[in-house]
């Protein structure tokens, strides 16, 4: 949780950083299956571990900055072109989540992100969908009786041309606009919000939160400037955690090895767009899925009208089937062994790289 102490700590540290580097910070949200202490306790006695990735060897170490408030300093060291690169970032631990916060444009942050990804399935990255994010902002406005505005936002639209290339339209606005109006405008023009600056609180209007790539349901880069905009970040961590726990609960205990009489417990993905309406759209979806890292797949069937695949997660050896069952509907069927973390990783990948979808245990619409 971002307590006032942590807010003060971060504010002072970030403002000292501000003088030298960019004044903004990056952050990343992770769901935590068990306390960080436990995870590291199992990995090593010294709260540290090493891992190799892309020909580099990384040394990753956690140190408590504030034990009461569960603020961690994350040290990372790696060698690049015979030069030892060192860096530090912060991890704020809540009961079920970790918020990784660092200076913006810091390669150290990217290294930390990779290091945290090594802790899968104990740690899983989490993304909100666009609708969930809008709900969260509305809740903030209600709670703090403060209408949020944006002073800068970019809308984007991608359209596939006949030759397979994607043409992009980007419009940037710099007028102060109510958040509700920004979302409405994006919807009306069939565009997504690629970046948005949310202005700070009533008390400190000079603070703001920048959110990038948000339009695809992906708040991968949340950056804060200064002062009490950190309240928004604090609010985000708490609320995102609530949504994340709900989603995690939905994904738990779906392995057929655990269900009564080994019944299947499928999940439905309902996309906003008709992503399976034609062979071309199915191929486009397939093109994204095959890029899913740390996985193997078998295409059971791919044609018109349906796509049916088996995906194996090489990170924790989970397996799932995914099948399109409608113009905008897919079903995910966990197999004999499928962890909730693996389902979360796969669904997050789809939301991040393909588009918005609602996850549920049944289909809302009635069949034709």
């Amino acid at each position: 949780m971002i307590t006032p102490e942590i807010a003060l700590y971060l504010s002072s540290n970030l403002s000292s950083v501000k003088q030298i580097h960019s004044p903004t910070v990056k952050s990343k949200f992770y769901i935590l299956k068990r306390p960080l202490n436990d995870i590291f306790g199992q990995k090593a006695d010294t709260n540290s571990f090493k891992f190799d990735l892309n020909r580099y060897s990384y040394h990753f170490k956690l140190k408590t900055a504030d034990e009461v408030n569960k603020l961690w300093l994350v040290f990372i060291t790696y060698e690049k072109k015979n030069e030892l690169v060192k860096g530090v970032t912060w991890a704020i631990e809540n009961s079920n989540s970790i918020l990784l916060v660092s200076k913006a444009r810091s390669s150290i942050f990217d290294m930390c992100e990779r290091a945290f990804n090594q802790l899968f399935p104990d740690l899983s990255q989490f993304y909100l969908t666009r609708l969930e994010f809008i709900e969260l902002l509305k809740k903030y406005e209600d709670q703090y009786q403060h209408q949020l505005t944006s002073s800068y936002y970019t809308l984007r639209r991608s359209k596939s041309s006949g030759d397979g290339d994607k043409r992009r339209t980007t419009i940037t606005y710099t007028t102060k606009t109510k958040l509700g109006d920004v979302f409405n405008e994006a919807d009306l023009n069939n565009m997504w919000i690629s970046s948005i600056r949310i202005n700070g609180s009533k008390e400190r209007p000079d603070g703001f939160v920048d959110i990038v790539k948000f339009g695809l349901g992906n708040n991968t880069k949340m950056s804060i400037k200064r002062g009490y905009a950190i309240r928004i970040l604090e609010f985000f961590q708490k609320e995102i955690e609530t949504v994340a726990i709900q989603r995690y609960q939905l994904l738990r205990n779906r392995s057929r090895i655990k269900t009564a009489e080994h019944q299947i417990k499928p999940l439905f993905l309902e996309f906003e767009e008709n992503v399976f309406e034609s062979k071309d759209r199915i191929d486009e979806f397939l093109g994204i899925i095959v890029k899913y890292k740390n996985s193997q797949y078998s295409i059971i069937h791919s044609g018109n009208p349906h796509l049916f695949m088996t995906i194996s997660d090489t990170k924790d050896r989970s397996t799932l089937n995914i099948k399109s069952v409608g113009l905008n509907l897919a079903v995910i069927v966990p197999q004999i062994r499928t962890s909730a973390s693996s389902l979360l990783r796969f669904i997050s990948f789809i939301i991040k790289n393909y588009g918005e979808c609602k996850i549920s245990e049944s289909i809302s619409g009635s069949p034709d």
Partner: protein
Amino acid sequence: MEKKLCIEELNREYDRYYTTVRLTLTLKKALDKYNIDDIQFLQAEYKLKSEVSSKEVKPDVTLEDSDEKLILFEIKSSVPFTPELLEKELLELPKYDDNLIRTDKRGIISENHDIIFLCPLKDFESVQNMINSLGDAFNFSKNFSIWTWVEMNALRSGATNSTVIERKIGEVSNQKLNSVSKHINIDDVDLIEESEKSVFVPLQPPDVYLLVRLFSQIFPGIFPQETKTFISAEEIIEMTKDYYISWAGNQRAQSQIRSSWIKRGLKILEELGLAEKNEKGEYFVQPWLSRSTKDIKKYLIQRLCDRELITKKIELEEKRKAEILKKQQQLDQFFKEENRRKRTN
């Protein structure tokens, strides 16, 4: 070129079997959906014997009504493109027109069963034209009908895709089935559970289908750890039978997946270097490939084709050696006789 053809053929074999499984499940589901209570799904690949020729026949799907009357389905995922092959395929259908002996019911003879040819809607016209051109050569004493199947896209967002089956020519004797078969529509979403629990029909799957299902879907659940645990084919059957249920009806088998199939699959995987066998005949499979290999089906198909081509090459080499040996022996014989002749002279 040879490998390319092999890859195409294995993909076709795979698709044919997949479609057969899918249509079999669809027919089974149709009986439930349309409350055709007096007909039960008897079995896929039910064994019958011709009373005339004693030859065994196994329709893809067999239904049975309350009077023990049989309804036999010949399912086609596609029909041959060339007229000659289509004619040959259609002329095989009269094998079901004989009186048929039921091998599991102490020789009960089926005298008036229905015969249904189920083909893709897109092929219906060519099938119909061929039947017309065959005239009297294509004649049935029993009820014969042609049904078609097609997979349909949903009509709107939120709705599901479906498979539509329609009776186009001829009739069946059960009035309810006759009426329902004018238009059967099964939603994909209603088949999710069945298609997860039934990945095989009793017909032995082609190697490519067997391997892909075993390696990418079933074995990750059976061999989840890196630690080497050797398991016998029988144990695998035991472990999987609750996940992949046996086909309903009076099938004697306890499991959907046959022990002989598992053994065959494991043997091929061992040959491909993807399974390890111990001295007890048990296997360990590591169903996780190297990082660079992502598409398991493509990988297995390529490996199977390599294996087939190598086998062919070895066979050709052996044939060539045998021919050389034979020629050598013939020459030896010739010289022996020549020498003998010279000595005699």
